[in-house]
């Protein structure tokens, strides 16, 4: 029972630097494990092909059109976040998910679909990372570069070292009220949501966006604000609300999203757009003077064999130009051409186009990136002849009482 040692640390830190190093390592490992876990939970596979969704079926055509550098074929969204300048523009130009136009009513609209009023404005991606936020239009070009309260969307003191490189990508519509309306979420804090159902993505955007303060009113440093769009389950009341409930923005039609569909670059039938005069100022296409032309106009792409194709994958042929006309008019394959639909109209059989009465107008506006889609042409055609009306839609959905309660599990009221 020797006397107990009393000495306390004298002029010394309580924790040695070695102990600190050990603790730092443990922290780093715990953080990495957490990242790996989250990666596994959200990002089962982020690798997806850039080419398959928009380009035509790969055809061996080695003799012309120099190929894009091959290594850019497969990029995951994490790598894409490091792209700069022109490469970034090209990448983002191909990443937006575009709805087909609704030409008939999908089955099971009530249970399997969401509906919301599309804000009018410029569709864009908003990317926040490394202390800045950039919005990019459909063609990939930059709309704004600004500080935002999105994760890593502005330079702040408290950027934590582990997450400062993580970034977020939102699918938005920039509205005339200087607000970004968020209609989908593609990436959040470095975790891809591509392979998540829209049910999950909407749920996530609803629970996460508000936490960041990005929806706060604009301030001196944050001049653009973000806003959620109220999303409804597509039952009777949901559809009515989306169609007629007042919102803070000018509506441009209704968007329908299949609940189980993943985010997919390019045109997808699992998202649909529908419009009538009540909910959109732009039901019928206008020409470049802003006038609705007497005859419906379509833009189609001239193919190698003279066929006139839509931008769908696979493309849909609307007709054929003969070789002499092509030569006369100095046209080449890949050109986008403008046609009017004549008296003969479009003739369909079993949902397939049999015959189209096309009149050549000339080359399309240079700003056009691609031909019209089949669904767009058909929707525009229907609008002029036998439009799909809101009553038709309402008639096809059941009232909420009919439904199992479980579909209401996740409420999306913004």
């Amino acid at each position, binding site marked *: 029972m020797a*006397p107990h040692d*009393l000495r306390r640390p004298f002029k010394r830190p309580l924790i040695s630097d070695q102990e600190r*190093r*050990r603790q730092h390592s443990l922290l*780093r*490992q715990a953080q990495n494990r957490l990242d790996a876990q989250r990666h596994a939970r959200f990002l089962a596979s982020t690798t997806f092909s850039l080419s398959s969704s928009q380009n035509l079926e790969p055809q061996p055509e080695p003799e012309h059109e120099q190929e894009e550098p091959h290594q850019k074929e497969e990029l995951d969204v994490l790598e894409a976040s490091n792209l700069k300048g022109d490469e970034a523009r090209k990448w983002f130009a191909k990443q937006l998910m575009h709805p087909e136009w609704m030409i008939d009513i999908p089955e099971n609209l009530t249970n399997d679909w969401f509906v919301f009023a599309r804000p009018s404005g410029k569709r864009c991606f908003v990317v926040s990372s490394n202390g800045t936020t950039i919005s990019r239009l459909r063609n990939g070009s930059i709309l704004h570069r600004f500080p935002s309260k999105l994760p890593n969307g502005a330079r702040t*003191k408290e950027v934590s070292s582990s997450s400062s490189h993580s970034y977020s990508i939102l699918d938005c519509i920039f509205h005339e009220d200087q607000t970004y309306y968020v209609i989908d979420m593609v990436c959040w804090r470095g975790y891809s949501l591509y392979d998540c159902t829209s049910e999950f993505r909407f*749920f996530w955007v609803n629970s996460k966006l508000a936490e960041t303060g990005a929806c706060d009113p604009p301030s001196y440093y944050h001049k653009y604000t973000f806003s959620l769009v109220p999303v409804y389950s597509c039952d009777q009341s949901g559809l009515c609300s989306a169609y007629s409930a007042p919102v803070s923005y000018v509506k441009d039609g209704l968007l329908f999203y299949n609940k189980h569909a993943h985010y997919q670059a390019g045109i997808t039938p699992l998202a649909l757009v529908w419009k009538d005069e009540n909910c959109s100022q732009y039901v019928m296409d206008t020409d470049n003077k802003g006038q609705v032309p007497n005859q419906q106009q379509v833009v189609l792409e001239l193919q190698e064999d003279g066929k006139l194709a839509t931008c769908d994958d696979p493309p849909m042929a609307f007709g054929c130009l003969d070789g002499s006309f092509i030569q006369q008019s100095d046209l080449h394959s890949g050109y986008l051409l403008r046609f009017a639909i004549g008296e003969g109209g479009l003739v369909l059989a079993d949902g397939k186009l049999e015959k189209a009465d096309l009149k050549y107008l000339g080359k399309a506006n240079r700003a056009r990136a691609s031909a019209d889609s089949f669904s767009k042409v058909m929707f525009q055609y229907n609008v002029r002849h036998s439009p799909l009306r809101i009553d038709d839609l309402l008639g096809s959905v059941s009232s909420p009482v009919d439904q199992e309660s479980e579909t209401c599990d996740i409420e999306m009221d913004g």
Partner: protein
Amino acid sequence: MAMEVTQILLNAQAVDGAVRKHAEDNLKQFQEQNLPSFLISLAGELANDEKPVESRRLAGLILKNALDSKEQHKKIEFVQRWLAIDPTFKAQIKALLLRTLSSPSHDARSTASQVIAKVAGIELPHKQWPELIVSLLSNVHQLPAPTRQATLETLGYICEEVSPDVVDQDHVNKILTAVVQGMNSTEQNNDVRLAAIQALYNALGFAQANFSNDMERDYIMRIVCEATLSPEIKIRRAAFECLVAISSTYYEKLAQYIQDIFTITAKAVKEDEEPVALQAIEFWSSICDEEIDILEEYGGEFSGDSEIPCYYFIKQALPFLVPMLLETLLKQEEDQDQDEGAWNIAMAGGTCLGLVARTVGDDIVPLVMPFIQENISKPDWRQREAATYAFGSILEGPSPEKLVPLVNMALSFMLNALANDPNNHVKDTTAWTLGRMFEFLHGSALDTPIINQGNCQQIIAVLLQSMKDVPNVAEKACGALYFLAQGFEDAGSASSPLTPFFQEIVQSLLTVTHREDTGESRLRTAAYEALNEVVRCSNDDTAPMVAQLVSVIMRELHQTLESQNVSSDDRQNELQGLLCGCLQVIIQKLGSSEPTKLHLMQYADQIMSLFLRVFASRSATAHEEAMLAIGALAYATGPEFVKYMQEFYRYLEMGLQNFEDYQVCAITVGVVGDVCRALEEKILPFCDGIMTQLLRDLSSNQLHRSVKPPIFSCFGDIALAIGENFEKYLQFAMPMLQSAAELCAHTNGADDDMTEYTNTLRNGILEAYSGIFQGFKGSPKTQLLMPYAQHVLQFLDSLYMEKDMDDVVTKAAIGVLGDLADTLGSPAGSLIQQSVSSKEFLKECLSSDDHLIKESADWAKVTITRAISY
């Protein structure tokens, strides 16, 4: 059946190695052939007063070592072995031991009392030897003083050996009565009295009930306080030791005695000899410890949550306590700063003053400032040093509002003193005080910076100059630089005022590490610590300079490895550890951003080969540092790390087998995780070996328990990396996880340490489950996990019911629920629906304030909905 062992025992201590070896072999043989007879022979030798002192002493020692070991697994083995011996033999041994307490030989008595305590330590928890206490107590009253002393010592050792719950209250009462009577001033024999006080010290933990009884407590306290006035210094010191122990064990019972205790401690501090005065100061330090803990638990406001209320003894004693402590500061020893082991009244007083400042905050400042002003410029170095030390001591505790103006006034005075004071002791304390200013009053969290563009240059110039001073001053200057750099950690890029001086600082620190006169001091270590911190807190501007440092430190490490053959000593191993540590910090810094990582990678091969060579040394510290650095390198390197695996693997395995230095083992387990995340499926060829080793570790009772939770987490890392290839390990890993889960599902009112450990273990198990489920996600082999789902869900349910998870475990648990639903999907839907976790627990987590818990819960909700509805 006793044998004659005297000669063998004497031979076993012979000078002649051959004789000694022969005797040792004999003893070993005897022990293996017939343990009971061997033990009885030893006890007989010890008890026999006709035998030589030397053989008796060794007999007692061997006996003691046959009953206890520092190694846990051996200890368990010895306990089982003793319990298995025939009771009649054990009775003989115990009788011999008790008889030895009356031996005229002090040595034999003292040895016997220790052996008796060891036997009691085994038998009392098994409800054996019930008559021991009674027979000891019967000794206390009439027998001659030496036996009384030995008996009291035995009681003390027993109390030290066994836990309070195995001694019934009746015996506790009797022990305390006997002990306190022995302490009484009426006891004429000082040895008996001292033994009694020391026994009380050990028995305090048994006295809960007695301290709750006013009369008994008063009596005990009175006797202890009286003993502090004994003419015998050893008794006074032991009595103060008791007071210190009482202050932490029975803080809440002290209110009515605190005034008297202040009086006697103040007298001791002023007048008594140093060993006693040190204990008297320690009493107040210990009270500070208690009050700091309680106030911390209050969280700044009185919530009544704390079990023990704060009595604010320090606040009340402040006007008397502070002057008493200030006076001690003037009693420095010459050269105390050069002596690593020094501990004197000035050091104890200054340390206590620092604790008082942390306890009372602002209130201490007006009591200390006059002392500082009075003494800081005096010609006598003791006064200057004491004033500086007082200032440094109060820099932690009081508010920045109170301190910043004082520091602003003092800063240039201090810098001047550090540069120009003629006394080393003063300079040492001044540098330390500057370090404290930077540690507590400099950083982005403070509104008013004490360091600005104006004084920064001067501060750095003085510190760098002082690094050339005598080693102890230079060491403190390095320490001050450490905190100076740390304060700029959050300064953000480009704005650190250190940037212009970065090169110069690094150069000066490297120069310090090469000083030949560092001797046994900590100077070299302090220089590397400061260098590490400077690197950690560097920013983009200085990244190129950090990058240059890679080859510099590599060269140094290379040199130590080359010269190792010539002189391999502790200093060399220490240096290797420091260099590996420094490289680790640099790797972590450069690896954290892409451009600098690229630069780092060109050295990766060389760095790795240096680290591998470090494993050839025998130093655990160097191994540990090299292992940590390799983990950082693997993280930075990513999949390409695979090229080092062939060579690195055997060291990885070696680390996993290092039970003895369990820190090395734990760190290696963590590095396996790093490597898994870096290599992903490329780790597969090494997994058989790693898993075998990890499973062996888990089933070993030699491995320190703290390594087990990380091993479970590591299962998760491996499964996540190799996915469905984890299949072949399921049959081994899952049962281990299951049995560990059952063990830690309930805490059952264990103490805080145990609860904390249980939660760490739970977290490890949950991380393993997460990794395994996620690893199998999307694989055709998911159904292999189906048989385990029920158990995992039960584990989650029982954790939830227990209501004692911490936030980390809650987050991990709700995550596992999501992982299970995510991977198993609808086939597990009904199982999930039956679990409480998927309802109440999920609901609670969904509304959690902790955003990590909420995030995991949000996600789990989606996967569960999916699993249930499709």
